[in-house]
């Protein structure tokens, strides 16, 4: 049993590309072993540092046996050249070729003797292709070479069973050597196995294993925060990025001048995280502190690293503070007019136009929400002003949040400030959801205005492209409605948005927008339900012929049925429906023109009468429930028809000789199905 050990040495590969390359390499090599039926330790790993991509697999046999096999060649009637080619490609002679009949005709055959293949030979032959198969999200060329790689690839070390594997990958020859000094790309050294390689680097403080690096970083941080009574936010994305931009992590705690804590914390946090990859810290009350972590790639023996980073953050925070002080006093209301100069989107006017539309829309929504029209109109008017501030110029990801802070500083109503701050939320499936009515109203009107606008100028996303993240916008809209149980008339709101655009002179095809947008939003609801692990058939049923105003209902009904489908009320409801609809489906419908009701005068027995009565009772139930339907109760009522249905089918033959009787019985079953449609159309449910 042997080990395969490969190291690809390159200039610094960015974190995301590294992670992707690890996964790709792992997948490709695994497929190679499986395809070639070579045993290997499936519990293997691919490691990386910014400069090294390392593959290590052990428990690989040195040889594999290939059984004897008959290889089919050309048809006996094929031209002679085909046979010659067949002989050549199998490296054999004419004497060893024989004819054999198969279902498809008579063919030439060649019998390959059982043989052994060295795994090292196979690897040498295939490694180059395995590497070629790595797909990069972004790759580059360098110098005169044709190879595409994440960053310039400098050398390949490849070992099997302690011996070098020799192959050529584009312009690079593999060997048993690598550069031990990643900075100067010097210090060539031979390695014959993975263990000595790992050991060598460990002595230099370099950790090849990313998981180990992560553990060490986290342990060190925890040690310090426990001592100092601090907290750090669990930010996996940032930690994973940090882990993959260092090879010998050293955690350094730094601080900045406390005076900067007067600047809104979001601004400080963004400066630290996204610009500098620092980890901010918080006190027990979750307030930001002036301590932060730097993960350095060298031991800071002379204190240069700490000093340098503290100077950098000070310069950055100085800038942020300067902008904050300058922007916060600039009167939001007085600036609204200036939004006329800022284009919202080509073909959709300026931001000033947009807030006019949003104001109308949010004011209409305020009627449904029973909130103050004045307040929501104020929020709509000022919500985009922060786009003109230096701060949003510097920190575009803080749009809205910064505006909220300006509003707060200038003494606007608390709910208005929060609404401005949360106007872009939620932003997709995972993001935080606003809970306050003003915030929901503002976010809804922002999203509706955008959706209608983009559909209006025909910039709908295609199956592969969605450059304006319109899908995310619609998913967010769906979440606002279903997760907050928001009762709005979405259809009317879309019509109203269209008319707001028309009032500004946009020549939109309102009918078309309504239809397309309606389908689009319902499609997003389906995706949403899928994410919530609702059964596909339930999703199909709940959204069948769904009106836009019933998103919330559809959501709740599918949730309810999904939960109960294996329980009695779900199971019996579906059984009753299916028994009835199956008969309706098998009977030839051509002869049947349904009236929509059965004639009690034509009933021949009690079973029919009882079923009829039960159906009418259920109908009465559905007529009596108002807006506050309890969906579990509805399912329970539907399932209670079980006995009447069973008795009917056990004792009544639908297919009566008398066509009139038969028709009447089919009408009765049709009534049952139609009544069940009050919940939703069960026909798509798989029993």
């Amino acid at each position, binding site marked *: 049993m042997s080990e395969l050990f490969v190291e690809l040495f390159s*200039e*610094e590969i*960015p*974190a*995301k*590309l590294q992670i992707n390359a690890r996964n790709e390499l792992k997948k490709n090599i695994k497929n190679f072993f499986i395809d070639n039926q070579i045993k290997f330790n499936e519990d293997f790993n691919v490691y990386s540092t*910014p400069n090294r991509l390392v593959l290590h697999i052990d428990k690989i046999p040195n040889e594999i046996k290939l059984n004897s096999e008959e290889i089919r060649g050309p048809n006996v009637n094929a031209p002679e050249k085909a046979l010659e080619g067949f002989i050549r490609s199998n490296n054999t002679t004419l004497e060893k070729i024989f004819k054999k009949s198969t279902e498809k005709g008579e063919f030439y055959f060649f019998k390959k003797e059982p043989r052994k293949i060295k795994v090292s030979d196979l690897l040498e032959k295939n490694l180059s292709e395995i590497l070629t198969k790595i797909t990069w999200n*972004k790759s*580059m*060329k*360098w*110098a*005169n070479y044709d190879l595409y790689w994440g*960053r*310039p690839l*400098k050398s390949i070390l490849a070992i099997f069973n302690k011996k070098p594997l020799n192959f050529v990958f584009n312009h690079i020859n593999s060997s048993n050597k690598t550069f031990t000094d990643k*900075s*100067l*790309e*010097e210090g060539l050294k031979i390695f014959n196995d993975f263990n000595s390689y790992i050991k060598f680097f460990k002595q230099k403080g370099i950790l090849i294993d990313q998981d180990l690096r992560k553990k060490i970083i986290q342990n060190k941080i925890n040690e310090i925060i426990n001592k100092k009574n601090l907290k750090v936010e669990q930010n996996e994305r940032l930690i994973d990025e940090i882990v993959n*931009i260092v090879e010998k992590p050293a955690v350094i705690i730094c601080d900045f001048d406390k005076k900067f804590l007067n600047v809104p914390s979001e601004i400080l946090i963004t400066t630290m995280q996204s610009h*500098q990859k620092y980890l901010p810290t918080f006190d027990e009350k979750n307030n930001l502190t002036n301590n932060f972590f*730097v993960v*350095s*790639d*060298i031991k*800071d*023996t*002379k204190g*240069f*690293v700490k*000093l*340098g*980073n503290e*100077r*950098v*953050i*000070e*310069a950055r925070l*100085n*800038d942020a503070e*300067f902008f904050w002080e300058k922007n916060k006093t600039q009167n939001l209301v007085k600036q609204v007019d200036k939004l006329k*100069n*800022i*284009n919202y989107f*080509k073909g959709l006017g300026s931001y000033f136009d947009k807030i006019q539309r949003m104001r109308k829309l949010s004011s209409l929504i305020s009627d449904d929400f029973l909130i103050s029209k004045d307040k929501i109109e104020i929020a709509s008017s000022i919500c985009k002003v922060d786009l003109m501030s230096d701060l949003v110029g510097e920190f575009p990801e803080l749009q809205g949040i910064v505006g909220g802070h300006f509003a707060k500083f200038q003494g606007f109503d608390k709910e208005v400030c929060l609404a401005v701050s949360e106007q872009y939320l939620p932003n997709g499936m995972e993001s935080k959801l606003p809970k306050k009515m003003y915030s929901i109203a503002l976010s809804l009107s922002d999203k509706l205005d955008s959706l209608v606008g983009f559909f209006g100028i025909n910039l709908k996303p295609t199956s592969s492209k969605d450059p304006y993240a319109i899908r995310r916008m619609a998913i967010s809209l769906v979440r606002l409605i279903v997760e907050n149980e928001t009762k709005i008339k979405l259809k009317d709101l879309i019509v109203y948005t269209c008319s707001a655009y028309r009032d500004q002179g946009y020549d939109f095809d309102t009918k078309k927008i309504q239809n397309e947008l309606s389908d689009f939003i319902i499609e997003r609801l389906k995706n949403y339900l899928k994410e919530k692990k609702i059964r596909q058939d339930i999703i199909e049923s709940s959204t069948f012929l769904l009106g836009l105003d019933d998103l919330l209902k559809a959501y709740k009904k599918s949730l309810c049925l999904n939960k109960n489908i294996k329980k009695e009320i779900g199971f019996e409801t579906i059984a009753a429906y299916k028994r009835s609809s199956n008969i309706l489906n098998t009977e030839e419908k051509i002869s049947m023109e349904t009236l929509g009701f059965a004639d009690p005068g034509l009933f021949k027995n009690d079973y029919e009468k009882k079923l009829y009565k039960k159906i009418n009772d259920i109908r009465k139930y559905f007529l009596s429930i108002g807006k506050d339907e309890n969906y579990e109760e509805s399912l329970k009522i539907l399932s209670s028809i079980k006995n009447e249905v069973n008795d009917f089918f056990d004792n009544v033959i639908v297919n009566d000789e008398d066509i009139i009787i038969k028709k009447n019985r089919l009408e009765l079953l049709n009534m049952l199905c139609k009544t069940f449609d009050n919940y939703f159309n069960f026909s798509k449910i798989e029993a």
Partner: protein
Amino acid sequence: MVYKTKKKTLSFQDTIFNLQKYWSKKGCVILQPYDLEVGAGTFHPATTLRSLGPKPWKTAYVQPSRRPTDGRYGDNPNRLQHYYQFQVLIKPSPKEIKKMYLNSLSSIGINYEEHDIRFVEDDWESPTLGAAGLGWEVWCDGMEVTQFTYFQQMAGVECKPVSVEITYGLERLCMFIQNKKSVFDLIWNDEGITYKDVFHKSEKEFSAYNFEYANTDNLFKIFEMLEEETKLLVEKKISLPAYDQCLKCSHVFNILDARGVISVAQRAEYIARIRELTKSIGKVWIESQS
């Protein structure tokens, strides 16, 4: 008493001299700044045009760079509308370029073994040049001191061979070396002249010009004239004069942008117009190279 011998701080001009000497020894043609207003060292024809075509090329030079929107009237310690870049361009990119770069830091007093030097992903794109590259910004103890880019495309043309471009932000670098918090406190030479003595007045006046006084009506007209001239010169197939006109266009656009008279939609359109000029010039240049 024992006196600690204090190492002499490298002045701003000595930093430039050292870098010039270093890259000169590496075989670069040391050029002087291009004599037109440009936004970055990349715009120098020794980079844009010379990075196109098959001929090998090595150069290094200082380039004064103008970014009108970054002006702060000399009030901000970190921002200038006029600053210096030290630019290195080598085609094809040499195998040992990282080593060369790290040693160049040593030549200006930064021992890479004592600092946290990091190559942080930063892919570069210049819409006006129709250019794109992959590379890093180089951090020294958290401060960005250099842009390091492998050109993949220039003037809309795929680069073959690929050039590597190294751009040092000289002010930032010197602030790091001299341990200064404000760019204006930088020591320019050994006579005690500071950056403030040399440039503060100019920052103040040019900010006023860029933000307040530039005559936008005229500039719009000048842009049109320059654009027309560029097109004419492209037809005559003289790429270098054509490129000069195009650079002027680009600077006029930058001032108009700083004056805030270009809307978002217009902005994209102007950038596209300049890109079209660059592309047509690149084409003429390449034809002359083969």
